């Protein structure tokens, strides 16, 4: 690190390595959400309040957690961005290109800052300019458009997350104020940082209604000298164990000491009369109809109804959940209510009131016994609340272990607790572990095929047919089980292609801006799932195709207007499943590709001879685009057109056992279609015999297998071919291809097995000795020794333990084409 400037400064964070990892992965998620949503914001404008909330929440979470680990620069930048977003959310700042640009820039910088956590070294990036620009947006706005809300944003810069809430809490008299007093250590070097951490930590539990020193002082607190902090926290809903959770969360912040943490009597009687109220507390349960289209509203109505006859102490779903519509139809609303009338009267009134609300049904009401409460708290009768309580405790425990972004975590966990039954239960798994699992399944597939083979060999060769039958039966079961296992493992490795596609809107936007074209980018089939290993490798080829479409495909706005097209170009990226393949289309409505131009270009570059150009059909001419060293752009741009494009795309896709084809219509547009197998590890193959050896042909490139009379084989220009449904199918004898030996069966009535294969649009026929059948094979790499082997792409372990070379169909077809081309002029 020595020798570099201050940019190489080592960073330390208030977190263990595990917590930092969690922070990084969560941070990446938030940045991804922000990236997508900000692009949506650009398109949809600020009318979608849900979207605005989501953006704001992501930014807020990021700020909270970066503050918690003490990443100052990150917290500062997210804060500036959050302030802008807050204004957008409150419609006091309009969405402009500049605003979006700045936000996207901030995301890029945040990504770099997030990387700092990984490297532990401060990057050279500076954030001050960006923060100023962001703040400038807000300030400028204040000048031109004096808005009482916008004019005083500093008043509550840290807490706006909860601000946009409708006054839901007001309906529920059970909102609670907690008073928290903390002290900052005398020797603390950065009291403002600690104070902010405390603020953020507390904020995760609810809304901070009062803070001394005030939030803005804490936030910008250059001159924060006070060592005592006082907060008044308005809990969204009553929670057991809140005191412990708060204390533990706060005490995890270094140099912060909790002096007191107690319920205040300020708002309503609920917290104050906690004990007395609970003595009379009644558990009520109200069912929401499963078909209810807006369960959150009904849940709210139920709580309001209960509020008429008493004080609602707690509710599940909580006010916050209801506010965020985290309510599922078909579930029950559980409430603890302290009635303000005799119990019987209360139950009758509530039942009456609730049953008058559509889609609601009063289920039960039961008085909580004081004894139970004394021991376990008021929530015991109410299982959901109990979950909440346990979660809060767990949180406290886990916070003790992992102080990481303590507040964020407790927030999510508590929320999860409240909606425990609905939250997806996820586990993060290392990709390597999944790969290992996939390898093991591969081994199992080999062995089960072997077992099936042994069973069939034994059949009829033993005195004890019952055992053979048993073996056959077991082998069948094993086949079924391993099939299921394979499917499950494969599914666990599947990702929605969204993970790949999500970065493209930004890319298209930036590139389009660069070349001053307007492009409407449509993404379809984001949910299509594919194997992780395929997903990782498909991104670059698609980027290349998109770049080509933006740069070469779509015309300039003037050109489009001139020929009467919509000035806004369109690029459509779609994914879908087709049989055992994933099919990705990249389609533009640009000017298409002219095969004649391609020919001329290839000719001028000396890639083809004028002789072959004149023989070339349109389809063949389009294939020229995949030749290496080919670029059709009139001028080389920095987006694409370095002439290394499409051949690399094709090579990379073929490496994945996939294929790429294109269709184009001049003036109408171009569509590239990429086909990929769902997984790279196991494929279906057709096994064939050549000489004494078995070879495997990937089934995705096999069109059909035929048996023909030897006399049907024509010789065209000294090259063997047959006519297959009106098309000429050039043939290659695999035995010759591999050994170079020529042993033609000349007898006229002999028959030949031919496997018709395709590669892109090209077809060829392979003459083989015999067909064995289809089998699932596990692809194994052959290693470097066979790098130079032409015509073999890998090895497959067969059921009998033998290795079969997997034929490299593209290489073989290329060979056929070359042979054809060589012979045509002759």
């Amino acid at each position, binding site marked *: 690190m020595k020798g570099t400037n201050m940019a190489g400064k080592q960073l330390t964070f208030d977190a263990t390595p595990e917590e930092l990892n969690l922070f990084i992965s969560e941070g990446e998620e938030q940045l991804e959400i922000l990236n997508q949503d900000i692009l949506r914001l650009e398109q949809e404008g600020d009318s979608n309040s849900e979207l605005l909330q989501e953006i704001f929440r992501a930014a807020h979470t990021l700020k909270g957690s970066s503050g918690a680990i003490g990443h100052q620069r990150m917290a500062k930048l997210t804060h500036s961005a959050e302030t802008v977003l807050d204004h957008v959310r409150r419609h006091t700042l309009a969405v402009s290109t500049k605003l979006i640009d700045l936000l996207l820039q901030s995301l890029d910088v945040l990504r770099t800052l997030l990387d700092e956590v990984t490297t532990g070294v401060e990057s050279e990036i500076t954030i001050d300019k960006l923060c100023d620009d962001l703040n400038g947006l807000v300030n400028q706005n204040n000048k031109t458009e004096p808005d009482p809300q916008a004019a005083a944003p500093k008043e509550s810069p840290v807490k706006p997350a909860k601000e946009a809430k409708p006054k839901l809490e007001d309906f529920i008299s059970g909102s609670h104020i907690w008073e928290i007093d903390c002290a900052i250590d005398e020797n603390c070097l950065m009291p403002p940082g600690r104070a902010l951490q405390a603020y953020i930590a507390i904020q995760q539990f609810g809304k901070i209604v009062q803070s001394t020193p005030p939030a803005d002082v804490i936030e910008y607190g250059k001159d924060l000298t006070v060592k005592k902090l006082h907060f008044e926290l308005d809990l969204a809903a009553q929670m057991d164990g809140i005191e412990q959770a708060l204390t533990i969360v706060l005490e995890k912040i270094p140099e912060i000491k909790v002096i007191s943490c107690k319920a205040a009597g300020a708002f309503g009687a609920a917290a104050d009369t906690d004990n007395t109220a609970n003595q009379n507390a009644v558990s009520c349960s109200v069912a929401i109809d499963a078909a209810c289209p807006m369960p959150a509203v009904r849940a709210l109505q139920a709580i309001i109804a209960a509020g008429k006859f008493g004080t609602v102490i707690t509710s599940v779903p909580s006010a916050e959940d209801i506010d965020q519509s985290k309510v599922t139809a078909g579930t029950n609303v559980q409430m603890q209510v302290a009635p303000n009338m005799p119990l019987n009267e209360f139950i009758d009134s509530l039942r009456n009131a609730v049953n008058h609300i559509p889609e609601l049904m009063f289920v039960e009401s039961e008085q909580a016994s004081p004894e139970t409460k004394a021991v376990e708290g008021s929530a015991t009768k109410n299982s959901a609340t109990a979950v909440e309580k346990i979660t809060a405790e767990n949180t406290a425990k886990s916070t003790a272990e992992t102080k990481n972004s303590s507040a964020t975590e407790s927030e999510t966990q508590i929320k999860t607790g409240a909606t425990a039954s609905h939250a997806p239960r996820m586990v993060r798994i290392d990709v390597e572990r999944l790969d290992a699992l996939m390898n093991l399944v591969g*081994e199992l597939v080999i062995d089960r095929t072997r077992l099936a083979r042994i069973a069939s060999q034994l059949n009829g060769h033993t005195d004890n047919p019952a055992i053979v039958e048993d073996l056959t039966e077991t082998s069948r079961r094993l086949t079924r089980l391993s099939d299921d296992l394979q499917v499950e493992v494969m599914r666990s490795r599947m990702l929605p292609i969204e993970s790949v596609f999500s970065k493209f809107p930004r890319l298209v936007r930036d590139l389009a801006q660069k070349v001053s074209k307007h492009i409407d980018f449509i993404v379809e089939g984001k949910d299509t799932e594919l194997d992780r290993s395929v997903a990782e490798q498909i991104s670059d080829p698609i980027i290349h195709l998109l770049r080509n479409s933006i740069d070469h495909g779509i015309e300039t706005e003037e050109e489009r207007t001139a020929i009467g097209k919509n000035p806004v170009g369109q690029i459509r990226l779609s994914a879908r499943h087709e049989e055992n393949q994933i099919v990705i289309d990249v389609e533009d409505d640009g000017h298409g590709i002219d095969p004649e131009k391609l020919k001329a270009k290839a000719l001028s570059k000396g890639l083809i001879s004028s002789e072959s150009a004149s023989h070339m059909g349109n389809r063949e001419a389009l294939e020229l685009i995949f030749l290496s060293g080919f670029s059709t752009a009139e001028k080389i741009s920095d987006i694409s057109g370095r002439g290394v494009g499409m051949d690399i795309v094709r090579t990379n896709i073929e490496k994945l056992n996939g294929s790429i084809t294109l269709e184009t219509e001049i003036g109408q547009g171009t569509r590239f279609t990429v086909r990929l197998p769902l997984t790279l590890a196991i494929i279906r193959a057709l096994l064939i015999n050549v000489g004494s050896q078995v070879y495997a042909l990937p089934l995705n490139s096999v069109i059909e297998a035929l048996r023909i009379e030897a006399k049907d084989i024509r010789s065209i220009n000294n090259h063997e071919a047959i006519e297959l449904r009106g098309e000429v199918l050039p043939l290659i004898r695999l035995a010759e291809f591999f050994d170079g030996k020529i042993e033609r069966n000349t007898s006229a009535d002999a028959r030949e097995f031919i496997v018709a294969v395709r590669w892109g649009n090209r077809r060829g026929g392979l003459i083989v000795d015999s067909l064995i059948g289809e089998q699932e094979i596990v692809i194994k790499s052959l290693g470097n020794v066979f790098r130079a082997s032409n015509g073999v792409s890998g090895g497959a372990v067969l059921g009998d333990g033998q290795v079969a070379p997997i034929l490299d169909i593209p290489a073989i077809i290329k060979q056929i084409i070359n042979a054809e081309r060589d012979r045509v002029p002759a």
Partner: protein
Amino acid sequence: MSQTATQTSQQAQTVLDDEQVVVFDVANEFYAVNIARVHEIIRLQQITVIPGAPEFVEGVINLRGKVIPVLDLRKRFHLNVSEHTRSSRIVVVELSNQTIGLIVDGVSEVLRIPADQVDPPSPLVAGIDSRYLRGIAKLENRLIVLLDIDKVLSILEQQQIEASAIN
């Protein structure tokens, strides 16, 4: 500079130590590979020929689910090629980045070779390419050629690259 000297002396030291080796014969000559490099010794099994592979690469075998290349040492050393016999074995050795099998005529024994019995390789000895050799051990009445197993393949790979460059 003093560091280099230390390294050299350390290397010399390792050579001076006794060495345990697996001895096998190829075309009636004895060869040995350090036992630490030998993964296992297996009977000859059916070898799948990979079209287009270099001549001395016999093909591949399936070693419990792992596909490994198999080299015929007779061909590698440009010795007379003969039919494989019942005593033929595949010596599976670990190289730094991969596992390969070597076909030998037979595996005779595991020996401890005292360091002072090892002479540096001479280009004239044994008639095979001295680049593959680490030394010659004189033991009682026979000579054992110590193979530098990494070179067997690294030189091979080099040739491969050259070959594919020509193509």
